């Protein structure tokens, strides 16, 4: 418990540092939101509008330090301000259009990919040189080496456009009202299959290879020989003795991957017209939308820190050695 609390203290400090960076980094970019919005209209907006834009975004209000203090106050009261690119909609509403979809799509894809990759990696290492071991890693590495953009486009073209098995776009049908109904759930799952499957296919190879290599190292150690010598069942040795230890390094990367789930997956969102955080992030950067950028970065950093804290605790639970020097 003390260990978990001490880690928590460290993470609070890290959170404060990143909140400050969130404020500074967007302001180091060249240009300003009014110019960016003006530029989007390519001559259709009259030059006079720039002054009006500047005034409306409150860009000239106060020194940077005053803005920072106001920003800190807002962060702690949960007020993320109004988006500039989507003015005057509050940042929380803008993020709300994509948060849940990203959480589900990218979250499920990352978990599936990790579970599947780890499972396959364990089996491959256990039966080294077998069919699974000699076929899967090179094939998956080959697929994973394709640019994701290409892979997703190809999947969309083949399974969506040509074969018509899956919808071409969006997270649910136009005529479907989102709600807790079974019909909507099926529809949403149907729409999520292609984007999720492409993410899984593109990333599963990494998890599998990682797990396989860890397993091979572990399988050579004495305690595995001992376990076998004791006459334990193969299954028990494979999962409870070998896989549990081989999992430790993977858990750390899994925690990182989970933390970054909320940054969305830009390319799948664009290719499958899926709502999500990745696109918002790019829009925010393009439009120099400081409040939206800050809001998104805040959510991402906090989730990364939270995921890391969870990993710390999980590792401490899985691996008694980390607790030894208490």
């Amino acid at each position, binding site marked *: 418990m003390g260990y978990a609390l001490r880690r928590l203290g460290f993470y609070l400090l890290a959170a404060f540092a990143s909140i400050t960076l969130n404020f500074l980094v967007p302001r180091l970019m*060249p240009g300003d939101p009014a110019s960016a919005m003006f530029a989007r209209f390519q001559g259709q907006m009259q030059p006079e509008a720039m002054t009006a834009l500047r005034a409306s975004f409150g860009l000239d209000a106060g020194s940077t330090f005053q803005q920072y203090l106001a920003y800190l106050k807002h962060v702690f009261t949960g007020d993320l301000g109004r988006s500039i690119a989507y*003015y005057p909609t509050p940042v929380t509403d803008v993020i709300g259009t994509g948060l849940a979809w990203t959480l589900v799509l990218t979250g499920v894809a990352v978990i599936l990919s990790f579970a599947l990759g780890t499972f396959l990696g364990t089996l491959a290492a256990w039966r080294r040189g077998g069919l699974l071991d000699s076929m899967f890693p090179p094939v998956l590495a080959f697929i994973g080496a394709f640019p994701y953009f290409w892979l997703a486009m190809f999947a969309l073209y083949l399974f969506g456009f040509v074969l018509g098995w899956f919808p071409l776009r969006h997270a649910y049908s*136009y005529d479907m009202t989102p709600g807790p109904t079974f019909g909507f759930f099926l529809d949403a799952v149907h729409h999520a299959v292609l984007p999720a499957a492409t993410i899984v296919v593109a990333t599963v190879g990494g998890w599998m290879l990682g797990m396989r290599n860890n397993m091979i190292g572990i399988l050579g150690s004495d305690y595995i020989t001992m376990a076998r010598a004791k006459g334990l069942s193969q299954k028990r040795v494979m999962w409870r003795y070998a896989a549990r230890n081989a999992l430790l390094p993977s858990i750390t990367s899994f925690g990182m991957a989970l933390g970054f789930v909320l940054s969305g997956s830009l390319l799948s969102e664009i*290719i499958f017209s899926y709502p999500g955080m990745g696109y918002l992030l790019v829009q925010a950067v393009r439009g120099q939308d400081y409040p939206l950028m800050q809001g998104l970065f805040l959510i991402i950093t906090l989730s990364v820190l939270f995921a890391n804290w969870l990993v710390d605790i999980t590792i401490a639970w899985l691996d008694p050695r980390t607790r030894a020097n208490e």
Partner: protein
Amino acid sequence: MPRTARILLARGALDLPPRRTELERALKAWLVALAATSTGLLSAGCAIERPEPPAGVLSVSIEQTSAWVRNFNPLLPAGAGRWPTRNGIYEPLQIYNGVTHRWVPWLGSEATWSDDLRTLRVSVRRGVRWSDGAPFTADDVVFTFELLRKHKVFDSNDVWSFLESVRTGDGQTVEMRLSRVFVPGMDSLLQQPIVPRHIWEKIADPMTFTNPEPVGTGPFTEVRVFRNQVYELGKNPYYWQAGKPAVDGLRFLAFPSNDQANMALIEGAVDWSANFVPAIDRTFVARDPKDNHYWSPLFGSTVFLYANTARAPFGDVRIRKALSRAIDRDKLVQVAMYGYTRPADATGLSDAYADLRDAEAGAADWMRYDTAAANALLDEAGALRGPDGMRRTAEGSPLRIEIQVVSGWSDWVRGGQVIASALREVGVDAKLRLYDMSAWIDHLQRGDFDMAIAWSGEGPTPYRFYRWLMSPETVTPLGQVAASNWHRFGDARAGELLQAFERTSDPAEQKRLMHDVERRFVELVPAIPLFPGPLWGAYRTRRFEGFPNADNPYAKLTPNAAPEALLVLVELRPKVK
């Protein structure tokens, strides 16, 4: 079994592969699960939605986003509200039709200048109702302009810089009194979207009001559906044009990029689109030559090669002319724009100003591709070739030019490559530099560039276009943010002509003055015109008809022209099968 035997047996197991059955079982379970899910999904796949919207609902693709944000506030700067805000829900007093070059009376049935040109009188159309049934009156117009005065943010065109008052006497006419004679101000005054007083006077903070349930005078005002990936508007039950609109509703799908929008257009999920479709004849028209059409007339903003005249040697008109003559514009429009446009003429005016273009001025020789002439002009300006064949400035330093273009804007990037290699042909060491858009616009506005490819100003008359290009009033010192006139060029004579243009409402006089401005432009070459921009527009006539096209050019086809899209929206009708 003796203990040793058990150990031996266990040891023996180590050298054997794990039992195959176990692995097989695991794999089999996995495959079964996979097969089960895929059959489930396949059966669900049969229920795929039809791409076409319901009968009578027109699907429009114009704004690009991954998720819609609900905002129908027409007073915020363009782009904040969703597209129908200014093209369907709220209407202006009059609409300038850029194709026919006429003002179309809308909520204001008549607009006339007083003899001293200080007062614009607008008669308000009788019998118009807001979509909640309340009558539309001159009070609403006055109230709207008062909102603009109170909230600087709403005054995008800065009308209160030349307005003195907006009043109504009898509730049927509005008198707009100007603080100085400024005829081009009419464009902004007449095209201002008007909001209902009885709704907006109750809004505490109109600046942060997203107007989720809009009440307007336009043809489409009822928000039927608003979700993050789709929204639909229905007809205004009280629309003032009898029998219109014939279209039952508008549908907008969220597409994050051109590719997704184009796929939807090709597939039939979109009826009317403003996106650029690559190789449109093959990818779109050929799929259904009877019903798939496009019309992209050259009414868009002219694309220029800007030379920073505040930096040596671009202050010298001979250098600017020479650089212009070095460029093969026929090749440029083929490579950069796939032939969708033509080379600009020397006035730089697009077809939107065909009525005011002086053909003689437009034929100036410095627009013609001629490397010999370009070389001669450069020599004359003192930029002689060094021993390496590359030119030096009159001061003796190498003539190096960086052409700034936005990375990822592939048409301009290709254009920039053509230009850079053309300039190297005449001994100028020109290089293309790609920047992210925000950095690029920042450099342009602060004058931190040698040369750049960029758009130009637009408006009903070429007044704003030339004011942007050569009026001393728009010149800003280097280092300060300039919204227009990035190349920092001002000519006193042109300024006078433009000011004279501000003070006349006589079409013949306007034409004469504008021809003088054009001749001044051609003489001074403030910037190098490249090509007029096409206004992309594509449509399908499978479900709807009445779109403008080259044979029936009653308005611009592209939905990307507010508020002119209103002219099209009221003409479209479902096809009778």
